[in-house]
């Protein structure tokens, strides 16, 4: 591990002033510090942003929420307004990591966590994401965790976050500030596809700081849920996961949101399935047809083919559960 300078920013403006010249923002550090130790990345300076504010959850008019980038995962998961209006987000948060890690990890940091691909984390192996142009070791190596959607020989890694799958499904908006001013980026457009160049995960520019994540309101009566499939019961990344929100009126689907985790270089929005669902009946056959429409575009490899049936069964079970919940209320 290379020596670095540790600095503590006092507010947002100070944090931006300290950016550049090899500086890296440090929030919860649950991923970054590991990477510094492993040599996956280095930093000249770590700018600690955990004391610049941005640590509150604000209820927006109309039922939305504005979540500060430095709200800890455990605090956000416990927030009454989130639990009431966005159970899918609370469930996704609680499905991630461990209690100790959730106490450290922040909302903004979660958005920027890097893949857990074993080759990305091993500096003695080629990895284009870590070392641009060096190739993808997972193509011919350990491939059980590889992507099945939007696959590219440039990089087979999957995005590790649970939270982001829910945020993508809900059309959350990321608010940032930086050298070029403030901007708003839909979660669905924050991340790059492997084909776009896996060296960089997001479309953020150097020195840009996430300040908030906005959750737009869901229509009244919408049910939402997150389900994560993993072999170990806790502290494991998703084999696959499903974030879903379903608005059913009179037995027909008025709105559907579906995000898949553990299957793609970015948190995956299942738009084909959503299109098939909306306007149709809320029954098992329609759900199966919709999920199959999405899965027709899956491209599993030799070691990760099981992701397809597991994802299918999980998505169907989540949709059926939401429809059932809605029908009973």
């Amino acid at each position, binding site marked *: 591990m290379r020596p670095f300078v540790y600095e503590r920013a006092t507010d947002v403006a100070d944090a931006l002033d300290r950016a550049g010249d090899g500086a890296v923002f440090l929030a919860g550090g649950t991923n970054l510090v590991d990477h510094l130790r492993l040599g996956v990345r280095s930093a000249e300076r770590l700018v600690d942003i955990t004391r610049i504010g941005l640590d509150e959850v604000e209820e927006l008019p109309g039922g939305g929420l504005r979540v500060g980038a430095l709200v800890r995962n455990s605090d956000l998961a416990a927030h009454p307004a989130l639990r009431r209006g966005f159970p899918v987000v609370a469930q996704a948060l609680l499905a991630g990591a461990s209690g100790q890690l959730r106490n450290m990890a922040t909302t903004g940091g979660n958005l920027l966590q890097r893949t857990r691909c074993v080759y990305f984390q091993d500096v003695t192996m080629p990895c284009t994401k870590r070392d641009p142009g060096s190739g993808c070791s997972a193509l011919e190596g*350990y491939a059980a965790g590889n992507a099945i959607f939007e696959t590219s020989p440039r990089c087979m890694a999957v995005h590790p976050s649970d939270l982001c799958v829910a945020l993508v499904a809900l059309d959350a908006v990321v608010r940032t500030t930086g050298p070029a001013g403030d901007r708003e980026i839909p979660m669905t457009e924050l991340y790059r596809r492997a084909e776009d160049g896996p060296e960089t995960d997001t479309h953020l520019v150097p020195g840009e700081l996430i300040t908030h994540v906005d959750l737009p309101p869901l229509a009244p009566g919408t049910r939402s849920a997150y389900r994560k499939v993993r072999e170990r019961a806790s502290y494991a990344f998703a084999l696959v996961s499903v974030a879903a929100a379903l608005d059913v009126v009179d037995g027909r689907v008025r709105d559907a949101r579906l995000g898949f985790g553990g299957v793609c270089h970015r948190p995956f929005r299942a738009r084909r399935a959503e299109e098939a669902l909306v306007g149709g009946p809320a029954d098992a056959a329609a759900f199966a047809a919709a999920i199959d429409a999405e899965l027709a575009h899956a491209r599993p490899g030799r070691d990760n083919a099981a992701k397809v049936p597991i994802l299918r069964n999980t998505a169907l079970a989540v949709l059926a559960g939401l429809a059932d919940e809605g029908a009973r209320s």
Partner: protein
Amino acid sequence: MSEPTGPTLLDPVQMGRPVGRLDGRRKVLGVAPYAVEHEAEGAAQAAMVASTVPRGRVRSIDATAARALPGVLAVLDHTNAPRVADGEDREFAPLQDDTVWFRRQPVALVVAESSEVAREAAALVAVEYDEEPAEVGLRPDSPRLYTPEKLSDGSESDTSAGDVEAALAAATHVVDETYATPYEHNNPMEPHATIATWHGEDAGLGDGPVLTLVDSTQGVHAVRSSLAPVLGIEPERLEVVAPYVGGGFGSKGAPHVNVVLAALAAKALAPRPVRLTVTRQQMFALVGYRTATIQHFRLGADADGRLTAISHDVLEQSAAIKEFVEQTGSPTRSMYAAPNRRTTHRVARLDVAIPFWMRAPGEMPGMFAHEVAMDELAHRCGLDPIELRVRNEPDVDPETGHPFGRRRLLECLRRGAERFGWEEGPRAPLSRREGDWLVGTGVASSTYPANAMPGNEATVTFEHGCYAVGIGAADIGTGSWTSLTQVTADALGVGLEQIRLGIGDTRYPSASVAGGSSGLSSWGIAITAAARAFREQHGDRPSEGASATAGMPDNPDLQEYALNSYGAHFAKVRVHADTGQIRVPRMLGVFSVGRAVNPTTLRSQFLGGMVMGLSAALFEESVRDPRFGHVVTQDLASYHVAANADVADLDAIWLDDDVETHLNPMGSRGAGEIGIVGSPAAIVNAVFDATGVRVRDLPVTADKLLAGLLPQRERDHVLGDASA
């Protein structure tokens, strides 16, 4: 032939009591130092540079950039490292030549003022190789397969009795299946670590220690006897210290290359101490692991389910650099009665890291195959799996013909069936469902040999009204500090407060390793002998400074009896019909291991073994890169061991009035390993009961179950009205 005269048993007064850990307070306060935490004034820090090719030669090493880093003290490689005196064991001859035997073999060592600088400098050492073709995968058609001379337990590679092929051909019921177990890594919580201080030949008027190793080890004398010749030091002048050890599971049962590297670095930097800590990632390459196995298991039985043939053919791997042969088929030789029997082992020495002991080496993978095969046979015979085992209980050891000391397997099975609520009769797979979960139960037998290792000696000295007892034993978290104090108190006929135990240091008399579930037995034999010698020589009112030392008396019973522990595992599993996820809501183990010297620490050993069995059944797998042979799941985020949430209702009990009369004066048999033997099979058998899907390769994961589960679930989705 005279009647064997076994050990004279101690009267249990302190033994049998659930005495809390005597070192518990020190552990909780954080003042019980683990190896790396020992004081070492001015210690330098070492970091290893690992090869990046699986086989070949080091062409060049450029350490210019590393040496230029402020704080770097030395960079050692095969051109400049101190020479070993005896390099025959290649594991103990690092940096002696340019040969690369496996990927991640150490090819250089950086010593620096801090561990951060040492690691950074290690990353800057540029090594070039002349790479050679490597073979890194265990394949049934590997040209490297051979028949080993001996297995690691000293037994024959192949055994045969009767005519297995004829018996199988004539059998009414046959199981003929192949089972597989994966590579697994021990992963004790405390990584391997050493502080080495080279005092030199002139130390202490020429008779002090030449080298001191503060090491994380399961046996200080094992480190001494292994490394003294390697380093060219008289054994008594190699000092090894390990008072507290944070687990080993076999991986610290002998020194590994890291200890030699620490010693060589200390010699190069003498008299400055050198601290070398193995990182979690390096533990997946340098400190041993369980080989994968491919096991062809065949059972033949008559119409009543009585075994006529048992055949166990094992394929496994070892390392090109050093042979280690797992005794996978050993337990099969003594488990059940059958007139026709055979076991074979074939091993491929691959261009990979060196396998070694991991909790119940041999018994764990071998009994997994055997006990799943028995479950398959019970299913084919239409018998309750317990009844099948009852029908095949041997009268004498099928391998040697010796009488069993006391074989209480059937009592374990029956007691467990009662406590677990086992439903008698043949299994009916796919018959229980709770919501989306398929539910099943399974059973398996367990066994582990009762071992007592030679070469133990203890000393008892009367000091300040207390008895100071010394033996170079180890407490690797098992509770030896406590249980040995209890044994000593009973051996001397005094209370615990009068005992001052000393272990974990070569200044005490020689002791065997904490391994093979033999520690308490072996050390207790010597301690009891020393205590009895003390009383004989000094009586009940000894004078200050009175002392006695004794080794292990002969025990003719060891030649006359087959001495084994037995157990029965019961498991309940739930398998999710949608995802194939498996949960284990209940496990019960019932054991016969002789006397419980300390019920608290005994139960802890059983539970720990069972959790490790659960972990092996469902999670643990070291995934090897198919091209380079190194482990890619090299941390605890990608190498999954059971988490708290995976362990639910876990219970371990043992039989009453269980006293082993042939092995040692305590009446105990050892318990460190039996909990992991058979428990994976019980879970796999329960998964079959739940789903009707028979998985024969560990770990059982969702993808292996789904193919069997899918057709059923497909019907549910099409026929069921999920939205109703």
